[in-house]
């Protein structure tokens, strides 16, 4: 054996040659407790093609896996489905080492790679619907703009019914297993949903369009090979159905209470609200931003029907950890939510108004004008919080399906 890093065969002609990142925990603000993989794929046709590369520090691992099945110098075509640096970071070094005849990306990808590498690469554009022959095998390309970057595209290998879907249908999950049927389906569901909630949610309407388009094209999907996490070969209908459901953002009777607290007053309000919600049959998540990561909130909100947010006032503003999570959630554009704001204060008390303003920007249907209290909530204020929880719970029961 020349090297410990081996390629993994996916189909007759396709091999996984990516890298496993056991240690990554922070993906530009999205926490990844299970690490990730950067998936690159080798197609051994009459001409040999490499689809995507890996994050730059993992290039040695990728090149070793390639060399386990073929001399890298024999690769003649390099295709970048997605220009983000976890997939393109290794591209200049790969071009240097392999010297392929052609490097391809989508038209927007050509521009993005130029903006990243400043002329270090010569890249040719592919249009939506273009085909590329590798002799005995044929690739077709589909632009998937804003899923999740403007440059993103899918590549489809017709003869093997294999869709290279770049970040779509992926997840952050480091593993030595490569295929969905080798892994715990509950973990896959959790990590795929977390990925969708944190990366794809802002573009949910485009996901709906894309699923319709893939359906209309009548593509046979024997294998779906994303750029992170497992390759789907068994539960393809499961992940396609889940994407359809998440993209529709149908609310359920689940309420997420997210708050931060200084001296436990806002916390007491959160607890009273949560009890009121539960009394009306809502499924409740109570998330204190002093302990919880913003990307876990995004996950919980994915199938929720209500967002109730609380913050004390610190120096005329939200507590910073609440400003953090609200900015993050606003950018993810969740839809079909109802909600409310609450919080305690010592003298000026701007936080509830500021939270209300954010809820309006997020197009959340507000229930009431919020509850604010000076210093500690007494029994009467806590009863008001409980009643607000009940009111939101009642409305959820009237309009939303039971939580899954």
């Amino acid at each position, binding site marked *: 054996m020349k090297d410990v890093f081996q390629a993994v065969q996916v189909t007759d002609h396709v091999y996984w040659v990516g890298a496993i990142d056991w240690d990554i925990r922070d993906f530009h603000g999205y926490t990844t407790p299970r690490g990730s993989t950067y998936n690159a794929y080798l197609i051994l046709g009459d001409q040999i093609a490499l689809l995507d590369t890996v994050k730059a520090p993992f290039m040695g691992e990728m090149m070793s896996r390639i060399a386990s099945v073929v001399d890298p110098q024999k690769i003649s075509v390099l295709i970048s489905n997605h220009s983000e640096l976890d997939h393109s970071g290794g591209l200049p070094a790969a071009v240097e080492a392999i010297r392929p005849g052609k490097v391809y990306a989508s038209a*927007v990808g050509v521009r993005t790679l130029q903006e990243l590498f400043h002329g270090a690469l010569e890249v040719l554009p592919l249009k939506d619907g273009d085909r590329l022959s590798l002799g005995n095998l044929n690739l077709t390309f589909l*632009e998937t*703009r*804003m899923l999740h970057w*403007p440059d993103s595209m899918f590549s489809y290998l017709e003869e093997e019914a294999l869709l290279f879907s770049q970040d779509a249908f992926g997840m952050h999950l480091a593993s030595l297993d490569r295929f969905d049927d080798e892994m715990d389906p509950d973990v896959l569901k959790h990590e795929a949903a977390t990925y969708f909630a944190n990366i794809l949610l802002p*573009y949910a*309407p*485009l996901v709906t369009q894309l699923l319709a388009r893939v359906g209309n094209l009548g593509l046979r999907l024997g294998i779906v090979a994303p750029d992170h996490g497992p390759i789907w070969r068994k539960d393809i209908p499961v992940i396609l159905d889940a994407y359809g459901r998440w993209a529709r953002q149908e609310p359920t009777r689940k309420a997420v209470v997210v708050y931060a607290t200084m001296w436990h007053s806002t916390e007491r309000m959160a607890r009273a609200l949560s009890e009121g919600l539960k009394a009306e049959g809502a499924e409740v998540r109570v998330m204190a931003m002093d302990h919880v990561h913003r990307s876990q909130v995004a996950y919980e909100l994915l199938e929720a029907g209500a967002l109730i947010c609380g913050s004390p006032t610190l120096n005329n503003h939200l507590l910073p950890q609440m400003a953090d999570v609200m900015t993050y959630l606003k950018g993810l554009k969740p839809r079909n939510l109802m909600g409310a704001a609450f919080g305690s204060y010592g003298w000026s008390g701007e936080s509830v108004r500021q939270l209300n303003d954010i809820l309006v920007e997020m*197009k959340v249907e507000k229930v009431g004008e919020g509850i604010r209290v000076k210093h500690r909530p007494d029994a009467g204020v806590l009863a008001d919080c409980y009643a607000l929880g009940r009111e939101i719970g009642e409305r959820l029961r009237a309009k939303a399906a039971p939580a899954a």
Partner: protein
Amino acid sequence: MKSYECGVCGYVYDPAKGDPDNGIAPGVPFEDLPEGWTCPICGAEKDQFSPL
């Protein structure tokens, strides 16, 4: 009235449909969209759009 395509994400503004989610009623020509209107999908500004 002409439709306009966003050069970043490919969203098409169709004046017949408007952009009701963002307060633009059907029938508003692209040229009359208010200052500050951005692509509802990717947030690109009006100057990123071109006529179809």
